[in-house]
């Protein structure tokens, strides 16, 4: 990856983080922690990987994306705004009664959302269905999903994992946002779903482990996933909950609460500082 591309991705991700925070701050509720941990992954997917066109969002041959951890909706909306699916000024209407931006993604009301999600464990299954449809029709599109680590406590995730391997869904690539925290605390203390690598290996998946905030590692993992035939891929992305905002990082309490005005100002100032260092305009 050349420096220019890398800088451009980092700038996009910084803008996405700002919009996700703007959404949650404006709504006075929502999920910033898990939005920020998956920001770099989703920014890369939409900016550099997926075959999608905001002008033709229903193209039957497009790649699909399912946000299985639907509570990271602020992130999805921010990425869709960054890519031109929805107007950036709509971001601040999140969760308001006259807005189409629902607390969890609604495919009927939001341009660019491929699947309604929010109830954990169901998105990965829906992604399997899209991938299986691609196999029936001999289509080349690929299906991507982001799964939460706490979400893997849902039994349905493993039912889907079984099905994806059984039907050799090599057109399915799932990121596991392994930030280690869920609402009630450390995932290993609440109900330990680890080790993820051994579990998915046992379920006959191609397993790749990366730093989920390193664009070069994301790029390389996606290339490996694409080259792997006959089995689905899980990319276990080690991430930091609240990534990019000092006081939110690695704090379970930021899973589902909004920053107040002062905290919001500080968060934006921190990201603006990063943007300046990258040579971008705030």
């Amino acid at each position, binding site marked *: 990856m050349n420096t220019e591309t890398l800088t451009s991705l980092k700038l996009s991700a910084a803008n996405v983080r700002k919009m996700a925070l703007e959404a949650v701050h404006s709504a006075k509720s929502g999920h910033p922690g898990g939005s920020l941990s998956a920001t770099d992954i989703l920014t890369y997917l939409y900016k550099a990987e997926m075959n999608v066109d905001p002008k033709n969002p229903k193209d039957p041959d497009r790649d699909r994306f399912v946000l299985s951890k639907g509570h990271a909706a602020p992130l999805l909306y921010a990425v869709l705004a960054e890519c031109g699916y929805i107007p950036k000024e709509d971001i601040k209407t999140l969760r308001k009664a006259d807005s189409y931006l629902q607390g969890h993604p609604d495919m009927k009301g939001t341009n660019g959302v491929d*699947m309604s999600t929010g109830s954990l464990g169901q998105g990965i299954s*829906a992604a399997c*269905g*899209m991938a299986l449809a691609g196999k029936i029709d001999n289509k080349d599109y690929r299906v991507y999903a982001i799964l939460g680590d706490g979400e893997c406590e849902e039994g349905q995730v493993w039912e889907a994992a079984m099905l994806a391997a059984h039907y050799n869904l090599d057109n399915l690539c799932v990121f596991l946002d392994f930030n280690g925290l869920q609402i009630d605390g450390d995932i290993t203390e609440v109900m330990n779903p680890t080790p993820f690598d051994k579990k998915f290996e046992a379920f006959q998946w191609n397993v790749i482990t990366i730093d989920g905030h390193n664009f070069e590692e994301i790029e390389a993992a996606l290339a490996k996933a694409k080259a792997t035939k006959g089995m689905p891929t899980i990319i276990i992305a080690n991430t930091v909950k609240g990534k990019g905002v000092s006081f939110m990082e690695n704090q379970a309490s930021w899973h589902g609460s909004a920053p107040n005005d002062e905290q919001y100002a500080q968060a934006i100032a921190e990201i603006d500082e990063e943007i300046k260092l990258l040579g971008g305009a705030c």
Partner: protein
Amino acid sequence: MYMIGEKKATREAYGAALAEFGCDERVVVFDADLSPATKTGTFKKEHPERFFNCGIAEGNMMSVAAGMSTCGKIVFASSFAMFAAGRSFEQIRNSIGYPKLNVKIGATHAGISVGEDGATHQCLEDIGLMRTIPNMVILNPADAAEARLAVKAAIDYTGPVYLRFGRLAVPTIFGEDYKFEIGKGVQLSEGKDVTIIATGLMVAHALEAKTILEEQGISARIINIHTIKPIDREIIVKAAKETGAIVTAEEHNIIGGLGSAVAEVLCEECPVPMLRVGTRDEFGRSGAPAKLFEIYGLDAKTIAEKVKEAIAKKN
């Protein structure tokens, strides 16, 4: 297709109709390790490339069906009613109902007529569960001929449909010329003293009750409600106005099913004396279906008794 009087289970007709209308390339059938029982195996034989076993994981099957339907497929997700509507309620609500996706839930082995397998498999709550989900259409065919037409109508309709089928062989009531339209009740006979509104295999029991009542000088109108949602308000209100008393008959808990749906229409539009035949908020048990109909009051005799009670309430 089916001879009038011929005994055939609606699940048999479901499998046969999937095979027949499944020549539509958009149709895909899922099962959860029950294909010899749900009869989706009949489709599998004809169109193996569009049949997928999802294993014993019904919730996952519903969400996979939802995802697949977004890619233009008409997916029939099949299991027993207990595990389709019951176990997978929340997947159906959130992954299928909320986004109004084109998934058809083929639920067989509904009701107490499952028989010997007993209470854990006798789903008497599915209509109630499905009725509370916005966007859901509920079809409950009375015989094999209607089941076949219900499958065709579900394919032609865009959106979620819950189809309820039975395990037990039941007499075929409808002939070749029978017309089926989603949301339209069917009046099967004239009658002036009372109307029996029945659904599913209880339509046959209602017709038997009519004969018993005729011998006693009571004229009962019979209406078949194959579409429980959206319910045909017009035919119900008309019957209430013209006959002045209603008895509903369903192989389901009297709470939440056809009886509740009809009561909702009547109390808002035309209150008349009304009684419900169904299981009375209780679980079933193992036994031969005919014996269970008798024990749980789902037979023609009980319907006839309720009709007389309802008529007595008219004055």
